[in-house]
């Protein structure tokens, strides 16, 4: 078995692990990311609401409040540097009756205390002027213009690609089995050999408690909280323009209705604590809950236009807050449930700070902050698109008709650093198969391209894993 030595090993290639790796790659450090799955963004990061929350929900003084508000502020520059779609579409929290107004006021006050900018409370009528599909009996809303939408796949993949470009090693199908202390730090045993590191960063999502306990006392536990969603066709994507929340409860932010950054409509999630940390099945009950509860805030959601449903697992810690801290070189980023995606840019910077304060590395002279994503032909104007196709004729060959994704984009997604090796990998990178026919037409062609590029037989091409 091979043995590799690093300054820092990050466990988990979700959005937190990839963002942390990218921030660490600014420094003269040897960094590796270990991931048990075959690709980045395979757990919680791939199945969530895709919202960059404003930050009014978390209690003031908590890590959730701090990193959410900071992360939200960072998103403008992060999205530009990483070349990923991000839009501040605003959010509304609905209040259904006058007697609930104190609760809305409390959220407003919390937001102000957390440093959220631009908050206001609007009457139901004023809110319906902005959002005509808002339910008729909505009495008032808390409006947060800084709330945004993002593509969680692209965000995670972009962080990972940029980290990789700046020298971070990624090891997939590498599940950590045990961690022991040594003179120089840690020895990490995996299903793919042994790794040594001065510092370990634990970004293991729903398994962060297990990974933490491998090297010390089990200080906390993580429960998987399942959330089920439905995704609607783009023709339903403009039903609302901002993200519509219901009043939050101790189980989370409730069922939201939101456009996605790609123009679909997302509705969900439910919230159910479960024991099986691998259980991402949807249920009849869950999906029908999404339908009934969503009707409280938004009328006439066209459920005939559902193109897919899915569920994701929030990594909910028993402490109620994010668990981020350094224990003698073992750095936890655990319990990163909502607003985890929103907080990722800020958590990553903080993790880099913690690592730097131990190792005092020099900044790299040649750090490349700017990532260039795969061109999104369907979103370019005609002249730009025509010009790109002239340079690369395969950008003119449409493979995924629903999302208008070309052969060139699919080939790019396979050939890039940390490129796609599965149908789902292609789908998350360039959206081929993400549309209304759900890969019915394009999958035979994408399978053919993957087989050709990876030099395998078409029947060996996997959907995932």
């Amino acid at each position: 078995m091979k043995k590799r030595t690093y300054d820092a090993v990050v466990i988990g290639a979700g959005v937190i692990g990839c963002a942390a790796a990218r921030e660490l790659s600014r420094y003269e450090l040897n960094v590796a990311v270990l991931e048990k799955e075959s690709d980045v963004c395979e757990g919680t990061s791939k199945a969530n609401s895709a919202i960059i929350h404003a930050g009014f929900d978390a209690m003031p003084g908590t890590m959730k409040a701090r990193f959410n508000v900071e992360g939200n502020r960072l998103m403008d520059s992060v999205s530009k540097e990483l070349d990923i779609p991000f839009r501040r579409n605003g959010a509304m929290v609905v209040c259904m009756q006058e007697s609930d107004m104190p609760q809305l006021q409390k959220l407003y006050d919390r937001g102000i205390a957390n440093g959220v900018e631009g908050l206001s409370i609007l009457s139901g009528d004023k809110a319906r002027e902005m959002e005509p599909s808002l339910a008729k009996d909505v009495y008032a809303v808390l409006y947060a213009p800084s709330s945004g939408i993002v593509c969680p796949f692209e965000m995670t993949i972009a962080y990972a690609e940029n980290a990789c470009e700046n020298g971070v090693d990624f090891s997939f199908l590498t599940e950590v089995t045990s961690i022991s202390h040594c003179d120089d730090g840690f020895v990490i045993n995996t299903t793919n050999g042994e790794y040594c590191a001065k510092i370990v960063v634990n970004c293991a999502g729903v398994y962060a408690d297990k990974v933490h306990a491998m090297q010390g006392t089990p200080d906390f536990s993580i429960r998987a909280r399942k959330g089920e969603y439905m995704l609607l066709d783009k023709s339903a994507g403009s039903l609302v323009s901002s993200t519509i929340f219901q009043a939050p409860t101790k189980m989370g932010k409730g069922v939201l209705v939101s456009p996605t950054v790609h123009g679909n409509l997302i509705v969900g999630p439910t919230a159910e604590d479960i024991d099986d940390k691998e259980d991402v099945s949807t249920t009849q009950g869950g999906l029908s809950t999404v339908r009934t509860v969503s009707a409280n805030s938004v009328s006439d959601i066209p459920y005939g236009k559902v193109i897919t449903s899915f569920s994701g697992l929030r990594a909910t810690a028993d402490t109620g807050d994010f668990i981020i801290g350094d224990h003698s070189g073992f750095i936890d980023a655990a319990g990163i449930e909502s607003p985890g995606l929103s907080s990722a840019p800020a958590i990553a910077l903080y993790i880099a700070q913690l690592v730097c304060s131990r190792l005092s590395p020099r900044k790299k002279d040649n750090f490349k902050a700017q990532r260039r994503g795969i061109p999104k032909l369907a979103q370019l104007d005609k002249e730009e698109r025509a010009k790109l196709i002239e340079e690369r004729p395969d950008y003119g060959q449409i493979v995924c008709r629903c999302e208008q994704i070309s052969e060139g984009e699919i080939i790019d997604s396979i050939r890039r650093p940390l490129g796609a090796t599965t149908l789902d990998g292609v789908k998350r990178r360039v959206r081929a198969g993400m549309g209304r026919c759900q890969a019915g037409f394009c999958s035979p062609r994408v399978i053919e391209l993957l087989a050709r590029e990876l030099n395998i037989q078409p029947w060996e091409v996997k959907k995932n894993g």
Partner: protein
Amino acid sequence: MDKHSLVVIGGGPAGMAAAIAAKKDGIDDIVIYERDAQLGGILNQCIHNGFGLHTFKEELTGPEYAERFSKQVISLGIKYETGSMVLSISRDKEITVVSRENGLRTVQADAVVLAMGCRERPRGALNIPGTRPQGIYTAGTAQKLVNCEGWVPGREIVILGSGDIGLIMARRMTLEGVRVKLVAELMPYSGGLKRNIVQCLDDYGIPLRLSHTVIDVKGKRKLEGVTIAEVDSGGKPIQGTEEYYPCDTLLLSCGLIPENELTLGAGVTINSVTNGPFVDDTLQTDVPGIFACGNVLHVHDLVDFVSEESGRAGHNAADYIKNNGCKANSAKIVTVCVGNGVRYTVPSTIDVGNASENIHLRFRVRGVYKGSAIVVRSGEHELLRKKKKIMVPSEMEDVIIKPGLLEDVSEISVAIEEGTV
């Protein structure tokens, strides 16, 4: 900008028949845009026989049927561009098309025939709960893999939905040595043609379970099995009827949806029942000069009817072009309403002022009707009655109306009179 008299979008059976008819009517400047690598559309993957009984009085395979038309396209010198995907159509019939060879272009058409066909309803749209593993395909995707790509996904399969492609694939997979465990159908009747039930299921001893559906999917990475349950008359699973079937593949044949995203972009009004555009008896949509035919208009049961209908669309598009977009007569419009048992009709309006030929009214029924009659009325006045031994939702019905019957009429209704025969 390039200009063409007629742009046909789609080179399947509908598009080819429309282009051929228009060409024979004297329109020379025609182009067909086909997104696939060759003409023929979905027929290319339908290697079973049974096509052409009406049109050619022969039993052809899908590719053979397609070839009869593609040969005509070629011999008539109709221009066609394969690998060419139309990205948008404007109300003014400005068409943006992209291909590897010709890049991104915009062309102007005098008239457009929409012939983009349909797509299959995917798993997500069916709201089947459970996991999302490898091994779930629509029947058409599996058909493409087996018949065109040359490899068979899976060894043990369950099929949900008894649409024709599902039935055909039950036989096809069986012939490839795959074990087809059963076909489950949510409705109390089959979604496919009777002849396909007999030839594809009965002949191979494959059970068809009506009023059954998949209520759970198991398997993290790869499909391990599905749970089937009986449903009540409201389509709700009945507790205690659950049965688990281990399988590595689930095929879905649960309905087809006309592909009208381009149509919507052109500002054409869509009928929410058919998911296809509203058309008049000339198969013209509510945007002048844009015609529709084949499965993009409404899902057909037999390709022969697609060809016939599309020929008329091509003919009418040719008339439109020859008349420079002006109608010869002042129009008198008759609205066609749906009555008892009728889901929709194509066309939904008849331009009686212009109609010189018999009007084909096609529709589908809501349920199974035995010994019943199709009755066309204007108010209380019965215009036409057609007796039928049996009518089922999986088969298209039609009546032919002589334009003379519609003088002094502004509205007609089509209804099923149950059990009157």
